[in-house]
C-alpha cells in the first residue's frame, strides 16, 4: 500500500495544511481574521501604461478587484478621460494568458518548450550565462533593448554595472528621427506643441485621432472646435484627415512640400524676421537651400497642385504666430527622415511660434522654471532614488551603432535610444563586433523591428536571449529565459515627469495586490538579478517606497500626497509661455549652450558635410504594378503591445491591406478577397480592403498584427505583420525605414 503512505502522509501528517507538491495553499483561519480582511470600495489614482503616453487614471476597486478604469477627474489635461486602451487595462490585469512564473527553455528555439522555475533558478541561469559571455567576449557583447518607460532605468542599470555600452530603446522604430531633429535644432528633445490654442495645424502623417495621446487629442479637438484649420498630408485618408482637409501627398516627398512652403514664405515675406534674427542662426543657408524649391517644383515631386501648396502656405502664415506644423510621432519613413523633421521645425521657427500660445514650447519641468524669478517658486525639481553606488566600469569598446560620436554620422543617433536595428546585424555579421547576449525588457523585436525573419535568424546565433514581459510575446517564445513582470496596476515605478506648460509629476502605484503571486515588478526583478550577478550595490534602495521618498524629498511633495492624488501640479500656476507677454523676452531652449536655435546645424555639417541644412533627396516612386507600403496606428491598439489583451483583441482582432479601388480593379481584386503581398524575398497572406481612401500608388495596413507566437492565443496568426515585409535598413539617424518598401499584390 505505497500510495497510502504517499497520500495519507500528506493528508494527516502535517497539521491542518496539506504539504505535497504544489498543495498547501489553504490554511485554517478564525472568523475574526477574515472579518479584518474585508476591503471597502475605493478609488486609486495612478498612471496608465496601455501605451507610452502615461495618462493619469483612476481605478475603481471593489472587494480587492479592479472593476473599472477611468480618467483622473482632477486632471484637466485629459478632462478626466482615458482612451479605449486605458479602459481595457482591467482585462489585461485579469487575463488568464499572462505569464505567471519564470520559465527556462527546454526545447529548440521556437518550439515553445519551456519549464517553469523559481526566480532564483532563473536569476542563476542568467547570471551564469552573462558571466560566460563577459569572460569570452567582454561585457559589450551583451545588448539591452527595452521600450522607453520610467522603470526602464532599472533594466539599464544592469548594463551600466557590467560595463556594456549597448543599451537601446524602441525609439528607432518610432519617433527617433523627430528626436534627432529636435536635438540638432533646439539642443534637447523635450519640446511640445500647444495644440489647443493653435489657429492652424498642418500634420504630415501624424494621425492624432488613431495614434491617441489623450491630452494631445483634447488639444487638437479644442483647436478644431474653435475654428482652427487642420490640414493633413497623408497618402491615406486617416481618421484625422476626416476631421480636416486631406492632402493626399505622394509618399516620401513631404520634405519637398515643406521646402516649397519656406520658398513661398520667403518670397512673399510671410515669416517672422525679428524672431529669426533674434533667436536663430543659419537662416541665410536655408534661404539658399529653398530658393529653387518652388511650388511648381514641389507639385512635380508631391503630386499636390502648386495652387494648393500656395493656398495652404498663405493661409497658414496668416495665422502667425499661433499656428504650427506638427513634427510627428512615428516618423522613420525614409533613410534621412530627420531632414524632413528639421525642415518642419524650421518652418515653425519662421512662424515665430516658439513659446507663444498655439506654438511650440520647452516642457516646463521644475528645472526649466528655475531661471525665471516669477516662475521658479511654483515647483522644485525631484531628485534621484538609487542612493549611493560605486563608479560604473568604463566600457572598453564603443557602441555597435557608433551613437553620439561627434564628427561622425553617429552624432545623429540619440545615445539614450540607439539604432536598435544594429543589434541583429551585429549578431549576424559580428561587425563591428559580435553580440552574443540580448536582454529584452517589455519590447518585442520580432514584431516591432523590421524584417521579422532576420530578427529570428539572429536569435539563433545568440548564447543568451532573455525576455521580461507580461505575455508570451513573439520574442519571449524564442527566449532562453522568460521573466514574468506584473502589470502596471500592480507595481510602483519612479516618478514620471509629464510637465507641459506647467510642471506636472505623476505616480504609478499598485492599485491591487499581485493577481499572479509569482510575478514581480521590474524594479525588484533587476535589483534581485543584480544581487545574483554581484552588482547589487548598484541598487542600494530597500524598496520602491524608499526610492520614491528619496526622489520626492527635494521637491517638498509628500509621498502620501502623491499616493492620494496620483499626480501633482502647482494649483495656482497659469500656463507659462516664455514669450507670452513680451515677444522679445529671453526664450532659449534648455540645454542649448548658444541660446540660439540651429536652423543650420554645425554638428550635422561636421559629421556629414553638406547636410547642415535640410537637403532634398529624391526617392524612387513605385513602378508599374508596385505599391508603396505604409503602416500606421489604430485607436484600440498600441504598437505590438495590446493585440492579445482580451477586450482590445475583441474590438479589433485582425487587420487588412488597404488598396485603392482603381488599383484593385486592375488586379481583379475585390473587397474582402484573399491576397498575397510580395516584397522581395518575403511574402505575406492577407485580406484586401478596397477603398477610395488611399492613393492608387500606395497600400496600407495597421501595425502590430500577424503574430507568430502561439503563446498569444487570441492574436496568433491573425492579420498582416507589416514588419515581415520591410527590410532591416538603418537610416541616417539610426532609424528603421518604414515607408520605402514597394510591394506587389496578387489575388489568391
Amino acid at each position, binding site marked *: 500500500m*505505497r*500510495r*497510502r503512505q*504517499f*497520500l*495519507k502522509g*500528506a*493528508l*494527516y501528517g502535517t497539521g*491542518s*495544511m*496539506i504539504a*505535497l*507538491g*504544489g*498543495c*498547501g*495553499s*489553504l*490554511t*485554517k*483561519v*478564525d*472568523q475574526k*481574521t*477574515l472579518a479584518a480582511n474585508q476591503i471597502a470600495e475605493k478609488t486609486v489614482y495612478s498612471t496608465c501604461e496601455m501605451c507610452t503616453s502615461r495618462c493619469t487614471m483612476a481605478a475603481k476597486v471593489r*472587494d480587492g*478587484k479592479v472593476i473599472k478604469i477611468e480618467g483622473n477627474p482632477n486632471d484637466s489635461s485629459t478632462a478626466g478621460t482615458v482612451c479605449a486602451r486605458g479602459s481595457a487595462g*482591467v*482585462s489585461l490585469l*485579469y*487575463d*488568464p*494568458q*499572462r*505569464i*505567471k*512564473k519564470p*520559465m527556462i527553455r*527546454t*526545447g529548440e528555439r521556437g518550439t*515553445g*518548450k*519551456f*519549464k*517553469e522555475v523559481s526566480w532564483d533558478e532563473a536569476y542563476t541561469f542568467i547570471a551564469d550565462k552573462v558571466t560566460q559571455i563577459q569572460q569570452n567576449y567582454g561585457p559589450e557583447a551583451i545588448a539591452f533593448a527595452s521600450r522607453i518607460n520610467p522603470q526602464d532605468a532599472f533594466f539599464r542599470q544592469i548594463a551600466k554595472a557590467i560595463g556594456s555600452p549597448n543599451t537601446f530603446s524602441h525609439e528607432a522604430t518610432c519617433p527617433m528621427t523627430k528626436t534627432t531633429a529636435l536635438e540638432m535644432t533646439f539642443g534637447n528633445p523635450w519640446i511640445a506643441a500647444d495644440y489647443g490654442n493653435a489657429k492652424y495645424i498642418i500634420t504630415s502623417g501624424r494621425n492624432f485621432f488613431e495614434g491617441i495621446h489623450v491630452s494631445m487629442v483634447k488639444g487638437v479637438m479644442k483647436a478644431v472646435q474653435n475654428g482652427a484649420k487642420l490640414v493633413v498630408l497623408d497618402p491615406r485618408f486617416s481618421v484625422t484627415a476626416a476631421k480636416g482637409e486631406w492632402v493626399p501627398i505622394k509618399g516620401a516627398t513631404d520634405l519637398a512640400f515643406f521646402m516649397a512652403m519656406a520658398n513661398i514664405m520667403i518670397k512673399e515675406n510671410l515669416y517672422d524676421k525679428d524672431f529669426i534674427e533674434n533667436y536663430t542662426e543659419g537662416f541665410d543657408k536655408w534661404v539658399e537651400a529653398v530658393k529653387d524649391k518652388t511650388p511648381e517644383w514641389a507639385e512635380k515631386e508631391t503630386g499636390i497642385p502648386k495652387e494648393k501648396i500656395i493656398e495652404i502656405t498663405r493661409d497658414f502664415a496668416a495665422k502667425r504666430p499661433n499656428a504650427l506644423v506638427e513634427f510627428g510621432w512615428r516618423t522613420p519613413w525614409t533613410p534621412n527622415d530627420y531632414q524632413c523633421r528639421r525642415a518642419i521645425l524650421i518652418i515653425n521657427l519662421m512662424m515665430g511660434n516658439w513659446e507663444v500660445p498655439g506654438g511650440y514650447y520647452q516642457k516646463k519641468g521644475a528645472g526649466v522654471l528655475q531661471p525665471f524669478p516669477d516662475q521658479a517658486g511654483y515647483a522644485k525639481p525631484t531628485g534621484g532614488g538609487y542612493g549611493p553606488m560605486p563608479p560604473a566600469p568604463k566600457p572598453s569598446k564603443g557602441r555597435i551603432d557608433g551613437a553620439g560620436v561627434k564628427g561622425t554620422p553617429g552624432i545623429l543617433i540619440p545615445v539614450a535610444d540607439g539604432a536598435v536595428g544594429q543589434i541583429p546585424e551585429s549578431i549576424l555579421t559580428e561587425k563591428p563586433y559580435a553580440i552574443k547576449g540580448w536582454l529584452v525588457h517589455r519590447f518585442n523585436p520580432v514584431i516591432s523591428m523590421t524584417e521579422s525573419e532576420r530578427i529570428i535568424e539572429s536569435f539563433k546565433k545568440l548564447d543568451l536571449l532573455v525576455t521580461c514581459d507580461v*505575455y*508570451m510575446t513573439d520574442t519571449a*517564445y524564442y527566449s532562453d529565459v522568460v521573466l514574468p513582470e506584473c502589470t502596471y496596476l500592480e507595481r510602483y515605478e519612479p516618478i514620471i515627469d509629464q510637465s507641459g506648460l506647467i510642471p506636472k509629476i505623476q505616480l504609478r502605484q499598485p492599485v491591487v495586490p499581485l*493577481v*499572479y*503571486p*509569482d510575478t514581480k515588478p521590474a524594479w525588484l526583478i533587476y535589483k534581485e538579478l543584480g544581487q545574483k550577478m554581484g552588482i547589487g550595490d548598484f541598487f542600494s534602495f530597500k524598496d520602491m517606497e524608499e526610492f520614491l521618498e528619496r526622489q520626492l524629498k527635494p521637491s517638498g511633495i509628500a509621498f502620501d500626497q502623491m499616493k492620494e492624488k496620483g499626480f501633482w501640479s502647482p494649483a495656482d500656476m497659469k500656463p507659462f509661455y516664455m514669450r507670452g507677454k513680451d515677444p522679445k523676452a529671453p526664450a532659449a531652449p534648455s540645454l542649448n549652450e548658444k541660446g540660439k536655435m540651429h536652423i543650420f546645424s554645425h554638428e550635422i555639417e561636421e559629421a556629414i558635410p553638406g547636410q547642415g541644412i535640410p537637403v532634398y533627396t529624391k526617392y524612387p516612386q513605385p513602378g508599374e504594378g508596385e505599391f508603396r507600403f505604409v503602416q500606421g496606428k489604430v485607436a484600440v491598439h498600441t504598437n505590438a503591445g495590446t493585440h492579445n489583451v*482580451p477586450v482590445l483583441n475583441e474590438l479589433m482582432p485582425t487587420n487588412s491591406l488597404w488598396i485603392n479601388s482603381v488599383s484593385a480593379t486592375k488586379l481583379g481584386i475585390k473587397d474582402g478577397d484573399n491576397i498575397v503581398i510580395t516584397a522581395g524575398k518575403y511574402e505575406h497572406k492577407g485580406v484586401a480592403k478596397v477603398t477610395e481612401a488611399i492613393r492608387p500608388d500606395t497600400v496600407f495596413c495597421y501595425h502590430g498584427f500577424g503574430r507568430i*507566437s*502561439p*503563446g*498569444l*492565443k487570441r492574436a*496568433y496568426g491573425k492579420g498582416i505583420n507589416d514588419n515581415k515585409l520591410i527590410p532591416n535598413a538603418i537610416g541616417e539617424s539610426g532609424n528603421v525605414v518604414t515607408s520605402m518598401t514597394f510591394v506587389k499584390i496578387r489575388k489568391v
Partner: protein
Amino acid sequence: MKESTTAELYLSFATIFHRPHPEVVNHLEELIELWEEEIPDIMEPLAALKKFCQIYAPGETRINTLWEHYIPLFETGSVEAPPFASIYLSGDGLVLGTETIAVQTFYNSAGYAMGEKAEQLPDHLAIELEFLALLARDGEEVLLENFRQKHLIPFLTKILPRIKNGSRPVYSSVAQILQSWQLG
C-alpha cells in the same frame, strides 16, 4: 467509499492539476494504482497513463515532458484549458470574477482561507480539489457535497472536456478518470 479514500482521491487529482512537482511526478505510478483500485471503468485512460510511465521513467525527462504540456494547457500563452473556474462561470472570461469570490467565501465559511504564500488563485482547479480533500479528511460531508454541487461539478463540466479533448498526455487521461468519478 471511506472518507479517507475520498480524501486521497481528491488529493490525487489536486496534485496532478497543480504545477508539475517532482514529489508528485515521480510517484505517478502510485496515483495510477489508487485510481485503478477505486474508480471503475477507466481502462483506456489507465492504459495510456501506464504507457506514459513506461516511456518516461521518474526523473528530469518525465517532469520536463509534463511541463511541455502543462504550460500551454493551463499556465501561459495559449492556455488551452484555463484552470480557473471564474473563466467559465463568471461571464467575462477573466480571472478573479464572481465565481472566484463565491469560492473564496465558501472556503472562509468552512474556516479556510488562501495562505499568504499561496501561488494560485482560489478557484484554480487544483485548489478546489485540495479543499475537497481537506473537507473529506475532516469528515465534513455536508459541506463537501454542498461545495461539490455548487462549484466543482459546474466547473468540471466545462473544463474537463477541454482537457480531455486536448489530447495532451497524462492530463487528458487524468481528466477522463476524474470525469468518470465525478460526472459519471
